[in-house]
């Protein structure tokens, strides 16, 4: 790249122009003019003045501090209000332990099931052409459109004492609502679309050439899936699983409807936080809440790492496809 006035503009503006692929298209006109003032006026009119930039950055940081950083800091400060001892003591409560156990069980069942479903559904949707595909995708996304409390209500209508299967369940002495199975069912429902909606667009973008090559070289369907598809989508899969897990462990509204709040038996960690808070046991409530806040921070960190990997993978894929086409 020669240092024409045109590229001089863009070079001095790398911060704002980094994402723009067509850097040299328009300023060619300027290059012909060789007029300094024109260069200057374009520079100022495609950028905001410094004071506006600083103002906007300040507004951003102020707004995010008010709504994100202060609440997060408040959780930890409130938890440690009476020192580390009191904070840790709230985890010695057997009810806290049973809540942690129940949350791990619910997420431990819901996340793998949704992961397998996500892989199966995205193989069917992203690898084949069939009619009604967009309807199927909409139906998979449906649980996102339903508010948490309504999701819980749906399962009460099915399995509650006056629900469809209520009398049958009562006759066989089975309990789903106000018991662990109900909590697991709503957790699966709430987190249903997470993995599938990450994988479907990713697999559609990657295309099926590699799988076709594997099959025509004599690999079986399973072999192709394990050796070609899975390695290709592993970061997208990770991303979906991380988000799915965060939601599964943190869900409150839907689980609260079906759980019945039986202390030590059907309380998940978020419900345990609510019980402690309503008992005015604030330090314990915030201590248990800070456990969930740590989970959220770990989720964000892992998500960012996976995003970086995904971006790199996408860039590599684009690079190889462009060398193929030339």
């Amino acid at each position, binding site marked *: 790249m020669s240092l024409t006035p045109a590229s001089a503009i863009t070079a001095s503006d790398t911060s*704002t122009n980094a994402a723009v692929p067509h850097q040299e298209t328009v300023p060619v006109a300027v290059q012909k003019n060789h007029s300094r003032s024109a260069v200057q006026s374009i520079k100022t009119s495609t950028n905001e003045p410094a004071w506006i930039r600083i103002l906007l950055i300040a*507004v951003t940081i102020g707004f995010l501090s008010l709504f994100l950083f202060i609440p997060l800091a408040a959780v930890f400060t409130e938890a440690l209000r009476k020192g580390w001892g009191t904070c840790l003591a709230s985890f010695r409560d057997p009810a806290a332990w049973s809540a942690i156990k129940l949350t791990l069980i619910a997420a431990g069942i819901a996340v793998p099931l949704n992961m397998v479903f996500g892989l199966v559904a995205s193989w069917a949707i992203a690898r084949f052409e069939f009619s009604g595909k967009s309807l199927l995708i909409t139906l998979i996304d449906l649980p996102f459109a339903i508010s948490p409390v*309504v999701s819980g209500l749906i399962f009460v209508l099915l399995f*509650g004492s006056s629900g469809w299967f209520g009398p049958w369940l009562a006759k066989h002495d089975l309990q789903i609502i106000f018991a662990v199975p109900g909590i697991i069912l709503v957790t699966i429902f709430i987190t249903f679309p997470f993995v599938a909606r990450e994988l479907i667009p990713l697999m559609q973008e990657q295309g099926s050439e590699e799988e076709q090559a594997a*099959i025509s070289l004599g690999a079986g369907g399973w072999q192709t899936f394990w050796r070609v598809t899975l390695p290709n989508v592993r970061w997208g899969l990770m991303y979906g699983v991380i988000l799915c897990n965060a939601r599964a462990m943190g869900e409150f509204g839907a689980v609260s409807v079906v759980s019945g709040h039986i202390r030590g038996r059907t309380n998940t960690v978020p419900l345990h936080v609510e019980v402690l808070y309503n008992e005015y046991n604030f330090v314990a409530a915030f201590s248990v809440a800070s456990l969930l806040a740590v989970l959220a921070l770990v989720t964000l960190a892992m998500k*960012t790492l996976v995003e970086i990997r995904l971006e790199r993978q996408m860039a590599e894929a684009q690079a190889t496809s462009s060398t193929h086409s030339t």
Partner: protein
Amino acid sequence: MKWKFKSYSVLPGFGLTMGCTVVWLSLMVLIPLSALFLRASGLTAEELWKTVTDPRIVASYRLTFGAALVAAMINAVFGFIVAWTLVRYDFPFKRLIDAFVDLPFALPTAVSGIALTAIYSKNGWIGQYLEPLGIKVAFTPLGITVALTFIGLPFVVRTLEPALHDLEKDTEEAAAILGANRWQTFWRVILPALLPSLLTGFALSFARAIGEFGSVVFISGNMPMKTEITSLLIITKLEQYDTTGATAIACVMLLASFVLLGAVNSVQWYISHRSRGGS
């Protein structure tokens, strides 16, 4: 056409994966959901109307939709500024701040609920300064709006960021060469191009806020007619073993979110068609 045909014949497993997808989807989502609609269709129109127009419930709609609308508008304005600075400007810790935008997705709603209540209560970090000014946040509609703003914050930022990345600088340069000042370029060139994404983010944030429960119950105080949200009324009805009433209210909420998501989809459709026509 040839490629399509190959994809049909070469890759195995369509029947198996499609079958599993449809069966599992029906068992987990479609059959449970149909229970709601069948139960609602069993109600007489009169019963349904009487339940959903009860003054206490109408007051809750007004509060829920009003607070959600205000929160979505706050998010549209500030989310735009956040997305703009995160995409266009450089400042320290940008990547970290960008990652934190997703905090409301990652933090369990009950945690954000008690945290916001603690901050805005009388003795809280922010509440103690607002109290002398006569501004009460916790246990008022204002507090509900704050919680809903928190919950909807990532939607506008995350839908605008890719659109801002895709916005080509040369249209702005062209506008500048043709004599527009920065303000004109913003209003006439940049904003129209970003409007569909902004509307999508706004609608998503609004839809999420309508159904939100966990973060609101703590800060709202739940006073009948004043600070009761619609989701809470569904739970109240269920606790009174009034499943019919709960179902009726749930149908109103479902209808609202389907209408909103329908609007989002038509905006998306418009975007994809416009960009196809443009290129």
